[in-house]
């Protein structure tokens, strides 16, 4: 079923596809980041593909790789009942991929989350700001080099326990 989708992407975007596999039955296409939005647009609009249902968008950090951040998109077609996973990788210097929020409204928040957690920027996103963390937060916590125990508190922690109120005086 999803083989047809992989073939369709390979046919339409021959130079963009780097590889594909079907590990555990999940069909995956690895593409170059440049025309990501065009590929997703094709998957959304084409009658044969008809991926009308946006499923998930996230990123994975591979600190040892040259192209460190991998953006992973899951799409689903309710009409045809097939799924596809699209992956693309970008380097740490300028982690920018085209936004797909114009195609799927739901991608808006998921892209904001990927930006918040990994610092991947989405070109063409209407309102790319942090979503789960606060505006003043420094760094991107799901990067592997962000220490798990690091604390950032919007309100300074108390140095000492708060003073206990005076006990009521004993009744005479």
């Amino acid at each position, binding site marked *: 079923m999803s083989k047809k989708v992989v073939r369709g992407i390979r046919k339409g975007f021959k130079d963009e596809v780097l590889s594909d596999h079907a590990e*555990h039955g999940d069909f995956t296409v690895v593409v170059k980041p440049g025309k990501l939005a065009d590929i997703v647009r094709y998957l959304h609009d084409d009658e044969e593909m008809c991926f009308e249902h*946006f*499923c998930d968008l*996230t990123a994975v950090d591979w600190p040892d790789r040259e192209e460190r951040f991998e953006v992973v998109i899951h799409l689903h077609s*309710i009409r045809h009942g097939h799924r596809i996973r699209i992956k693309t990788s970008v380097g740490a210097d300028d982690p920018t991929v085209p936004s797909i929020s114009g195609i799927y409204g*739901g991608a808006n928040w*998921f892209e904001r989350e990927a930006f918040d957690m990994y610092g991947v920027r989405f070109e063409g996103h209407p309102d790319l700001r942090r979503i789960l963390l606060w505006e003043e937060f420094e760094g991107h916590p799901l990067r*592997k080099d962000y220490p798990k125990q690091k604390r950032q508190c919007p309100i300074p922690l108390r140095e000492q326990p708060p003073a206990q109120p005076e006990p009521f005086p004993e009744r005479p």
Partner: protein
Amino acid sequence: MEKYEEKELYLSAEPMKVNLGPSHPAMHGTVRIVVGLEGEVIKHSDVQVGFLHRGFEKECEASTWNQVIPYTDRLNYASPLLNEIGYVLAVEKLLGVDVTRRAKVLRVILGELSRIMDHLVCNAAMCMELGAFTPFLYLVKTRDYIYLLLEKITGQRVMHSYMRIGGLKYDVTEGFEEEVRALFPKVMQCVVDVEALLVKNRIFIDRTVNVGCVTAEQALGHGWTGPCLRSTGVDYDVRKAEPYLVYGDLSFDVPVGTNGDNYDRFQCRFAELRQSIRIVEQALAMLEPGPVMLDLPDMGLPPKDEVYTSIEGTIRHFMIVMKGGVVPAGEVYMATETANGELGYYIVSTGGGGPHKCRVRPPCFANMSAMSQMIDGGFLADVIPTFGSINMIGGECDR
């Protein structure tokens, strides 16, 4: 009596900004909605989530495979077992193992009981937000009967941690079938009572019909799933579309709505609750004695008597606790139907003792992303019931 000037009484049409939340008595869960008002009508709104962010994924990446299970409980705390089932199924898919028949059937039964609990409490909250406090008490009381049963089986009232990679923690207690069957009359009686109070109630209909409408196209583009998507008329249920566990052998219907408004979402949940009872009744008939846990030398803990009496058992126990088991490298996406919709786990393994990445695709995060569109143009008073009908669970949305 003091006289007012005419212009003082005039409701200003100038835009006014009002903050709802994050700690507001009307907002259950911590979410902030900034609304721009013209009179009582919302002109624009900004929904801000994340106040319950606890770094779920970061914690998972630093944990072993088995240690993740208690964290998944805290995602959707209204139906914790369904989250656990999603996670263990994803890891089992990565391992390539198939659990025993009894474990599968028990997972279905317990999962559906959790779904009933979730639907009860969601509809309860929605009624309460419209001022109907009696149905709230009825429904929450009924949920407690299920809590009592789950407590008896799993040992914990809310955060069960009962699923294991390869099966269940231990078998259910004796007399389980009868106790589950004894629940249904209580649940159905409560649902019938609540429906009698609300479904034809003039106030309830006025406040919910054609409020917070979403079309099927909008819902799909926003990645909606679950009862919210089905209320718009899209017949999509992961249990039907891609059957997992034993759902393929069970017969049940997928209730759909027509309008995609608050009333339809309310009705969809109760209709699904009835289907869940149907599923559990069939699953109980399928229940046969047998083992509930696979013997996975690299993942499942050995029996305690073996740990204490043999050196192999001790070493195996030690290795799994300290190193975290062996899962082959790879990536997997496993979608399951939870009470809120499609809960997907995208897990990446590098062959280590824990996940390299454990992504949760939270259904209500996607559902909430359309919240702004749903409330724009409506009345301020309708924000709270609309919010309630989406069933946003902070633990899952903010992770």
